[in-house]
C-alpha cells in the first residue's frame, strides 16, 4: 500500500489522465466538470503532460474533435456534464459506431428544465443506449483507478469501444478525499502506448464513416452489439490485473453486507456510500438488509445481477434519474428486465432519490426500506415512488 494523500477528486482524475499519457484533449467548460479540464490544461501549459489541449467552442465540437483525433491515432480524452453531454448526443453514437477508443469522464448532473447544476444521473441515463462502455464509481480512489483502466479497456483490440467513467458531480468531483496515487513507472508498465487498429494515414489511406444501405446497416448494429457484449471479459481481465497491481479489486456488481440479507437495496454512484451507513445501522438493529452496487452499467451485467438478486425476498432499486411517462426509472427497468426470465424472482420496487442534488441522508434509506416493506405487504400502490418530494 502506497502513501495516501488528500486530494480533490477532479484533480485526482486529471492526474490519472496525465499518468495515462493522454495525447489529445478537447473540452468545453461546463459545471461541475470544469476542475478536471482546468487542471489538465495547466498540466499541458506547464509541460507536465505532453498533449494538445483544444479549447473547442461547444461540446458537440469537443466530441467531434475527439473523433477526429482518435481516428488519427492519438490517445484521446474529454470530460463533460449534463447539457454538454446532451449536446454531444449525436456524435456519441458515431464515436462508438466507428469503434474509436475515446475516454470520457461524465461528472453527473441533472438536466434542464429547470436549470440545475447539481448531481443526479439524468444526463447519463438519457445516453444509456449510445454503445459505449459505461462504468460508475463511488469515491475518489475508484475515480482515479478507473480512469487509467478505461484507456486500457477501450484501446484493447478485442474491444475498441469508447468508455465513459461516471462520477457524481460536486458530491464526488469537488470533495477532497484520501487516495493512493501510482507512479508514472507503474502506470507505464500497466498501460502501454496506444496502438491504433486503423488510422487516417496518407501512406495507407482508409475510408472511415461510410454510410450503410439497408442491406448492411443491421449487420453493423449487430457487430457493435456483439463487440459491446463481448467487452465484458476484457474489462474483467483489466480489472483483475489492476487488482493484482494495487490490491484494489473491482467487480461488475459489488456487494455490501448481503450475506443472509432478505431485502436488497440497489444503487449506483457515490450515494452507495451513504446507503452503506444505513445498511450498517439497519443490520445493527437486526434487519436483514444488504446493498448491491452495480459498477458496470454497459455492457449490462445480466448474470452477475441475477446471481446477486435472485435469492432476495425484496429488491429496492434507487434511481438517480426518471424515465418520465415510462414503465419504470432507468435502472429499475433494466434490473426488472434482467430478473424477469427467472422462474423464482423477487418483487422489485423502485424509488427516485436525490434528484437535482437533493441531499440524501442515511435516514432516507431506512425510511425507504420501511416504506417498501409496508407497500409489499399490502401490494404496491405505484409503479415507482419518489422520495422526499413535497406536494
Amino acid at each position: 500500500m502506497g502513501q495516501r494523500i488528500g486530494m480533490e477528486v477532479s484533480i485526482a482524475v486529471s492526474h490519472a489522465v496525465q499518468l495515462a499519457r493522454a495525447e489529445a484533449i478537447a473540452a468545453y467548460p461546463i459545471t461541475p466538470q470544469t476542475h478536471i479540464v482546468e487542471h489538465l490544461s495547466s498540466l499541458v501549459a506547464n509541460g507536465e503532460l505532453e498533449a494538445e489541449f483544444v479549447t473547442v467552442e461547444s461540446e458537440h465540437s469537443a466530441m467531434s474533435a475527439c473523433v477526429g483525433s482518435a481516428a488519427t491515432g492519438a490517445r484521446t480524452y474529454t470530460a463533460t456534464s449534463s447539457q454538454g453531454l446532451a449536446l454531444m448526443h449525436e456524435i456519441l453514437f458515431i464515436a462508438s459506431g466507428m469503434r474509436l477508443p475515446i475516454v470520457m469522464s461524465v461528472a453527473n448532473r441533472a438536466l434542464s428544465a429547470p436549470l440545475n447544476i447539481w448531481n443526479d444521473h439524468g444526463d447519463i441515463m438519457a445516453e444509456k443506449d449510445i454503445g459505449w462502455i459505461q462504468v460508475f464509481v463511488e469515491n475518489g480512489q475508484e475515480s482515479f483507478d478507473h480512469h487509467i483502466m478505461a484507456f486500457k479497456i477501450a484501446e484493447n483490440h478485442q474491444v475498441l469501444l469508447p468508455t465513459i467513467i461516471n462520477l457524481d458531480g460536486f458530491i464526488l468531483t469537488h470533495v477532497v478525499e484520501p487516495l493512493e496515487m501510482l507512479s508514472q513507472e507503474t502506470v507505464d508498465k500497466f498501460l502501454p502506448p496506444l496502438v491504433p487498429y486503423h488510422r487516417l494515414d496518407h501512406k495507407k489511406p482508409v475510408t472511415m464513416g461510410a454510410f450503410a444501405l439497408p442491406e448492411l446497416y443491421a449487420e453493423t448494429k449487430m457487430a457493435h452489439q456483439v463487440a459491446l457484449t463481448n467487452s465484458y471479459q476484457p474489462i474483467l481481465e483489466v480489472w483483475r490485473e489492476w487488482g493484482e497491481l494495487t490490491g484494489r479489486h473491482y467487480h461488475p456488481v459489488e456487494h455490501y453486507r448481503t450475506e443472509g440479507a432478505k431485502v436488497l437495496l440497489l444503487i449506483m454512484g457515490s450515494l452507495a456510500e451513504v446507503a452503506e451507513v444505513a445498511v450498517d445501522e439497519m443490520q445493527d438493529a437486526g434487519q436483514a438488509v444488504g446493498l448491491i452496487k452495480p459498477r458496470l452499467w454497459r455492457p449490462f451485467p445480466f448474470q452477475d445481477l441475477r446471481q446477486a438478486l435472485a435469492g432476495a425476498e425484496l429488491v429496492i432499486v434507487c434511481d438517480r434519474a426518471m424515465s418520465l411517462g415510462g414503465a419504470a426509472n432507468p435502472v429499475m427497468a433494466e434490473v426488472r428486465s434482467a430478473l424477469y426470465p427467472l422462474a423464482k424472482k423477487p418483487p422489485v420496487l423502485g424509488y427516485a432519490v436525490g434528484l437535482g442534488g437533493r441531499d440524501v441522508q442515511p435516514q432516507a434509506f431506512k425510511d425507504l426500506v420501511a416504506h417498501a416493506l409496508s407497500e409489499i405487504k399490502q401490494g404496491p400502490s405505484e409503479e415507482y415512488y419518489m422520495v422526499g418530494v413535497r406536494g
Partner: protein
Amino acid sequence: MEKFGRAESQKFDTYASRMLPRDEFFTSGHRACQGCGEALAVRWVCKAMGKDAIIANATGCMEIVSSGMPQTSWMHPWIHVAFENTAAVASGIDTALKILERKGKLTGKMPKVVAMGGDGGTSDIGLQALSGALERGTNFTYFCFDNEAYMNTGIQRSSATPYGAMTTTSPPGKKSIGQHTWKKDMVAIAVAHEIPYVATVTPSYLFDLFFKVRKALETPGPAYISVLSVCPTGWRSATDLSVRLGRLAVETGVFPLYEVVEGKYFLTVQPPKLRPVKDYLRPQGRFRHLREPEINFIQQQVQARYELLLQKCQAPFPEFAPVHLPEVG
C-alpha cells in the same frame, strides 16, 4: 500569367493543361448526377491537393455519392462523421498530427488537413464549428462546395441560396418570388476571422482553382475556399451546361473569382466587361419565374457588389492587420 489572373503560385506559374496531374483521388464509379459540377470540383480539388492529405467530409451529396459501404471513391484517407461538425473533426485531426509528430510517433512529411462541406453544412448548420476552427488557428483548408441549396435532401433553400431562386422550401407563388433573401456572404465571414487565406474558385476556371488550392494548402494556419458548384438537378439546368454556367457566373459578376491574402483583396479573373446577369439566369429553371423587375433588381445588386469588391481590391490597406503570433515554448 495574366490569362490566369493573380492566383499564381511560385511553383506553378508555368503550368499548361498537359502538365496537370493525371492521378485520380476522387475516382469514377461514384453516384453523382449527370453533369454534377460539385463532383467535378471535388475531383480537381483533390488533384490539386496531391496525395499527402487527410479529408474530413461533412454529410451531404459528396459523402452520399462516394461512400456507400463497402465501396469508396476516395484515394485519400477520408472520414465522414456528421453534418455540422466537419471543421471540428478536422481540428481533431490537426491536433492529433501535431502531438504525434511532436512525440516522434509520426515522422516524415505531415499530411495536409482538409475539410469539405456543402453550403448548408458550412453557412448554416456548420457555421459554429467552422468559426471555432478558424478562430483557433487550426492548420487546415476548408472547402465549401456551394451548390446554393440542400440538394442532397431534395433542393431545400439554404442561407447560400441566391435571391429569387426556386427551391422546394422557397417556392415561387402568388405571394412569393422564391428565395427572398440575398445570399449569405461566407467569404466576408471567413475574412472577418482574420485568417491568412480566403478565396473563391469554380471548376470552370481550372487553373485558377488549381493555383488557389495549392496556395491554401501551403499557407500555414486556416484557409477557406468557396467553390461554386453547378448543380443541374437543383438548378434545373441542362447537364451539358455545368462548365458553361460556372463561366457565366464569373462573366456576369454573380460569382467573382478573387482571393484575400492576409486581408488584402485580389481579383484573380477580371472579365473585360460584365455580361448582363440575364445570360446567367436564363439557362436555369430555378429562375424561370422571375420577371423583368426582379431581374433588374438582381442586376443592380450584382453590379453594386462587384464594384464594392473592385474597391476592396484597389484599397491600399488590407481589411485587417495580419497577426503573426510569436512561437511559445
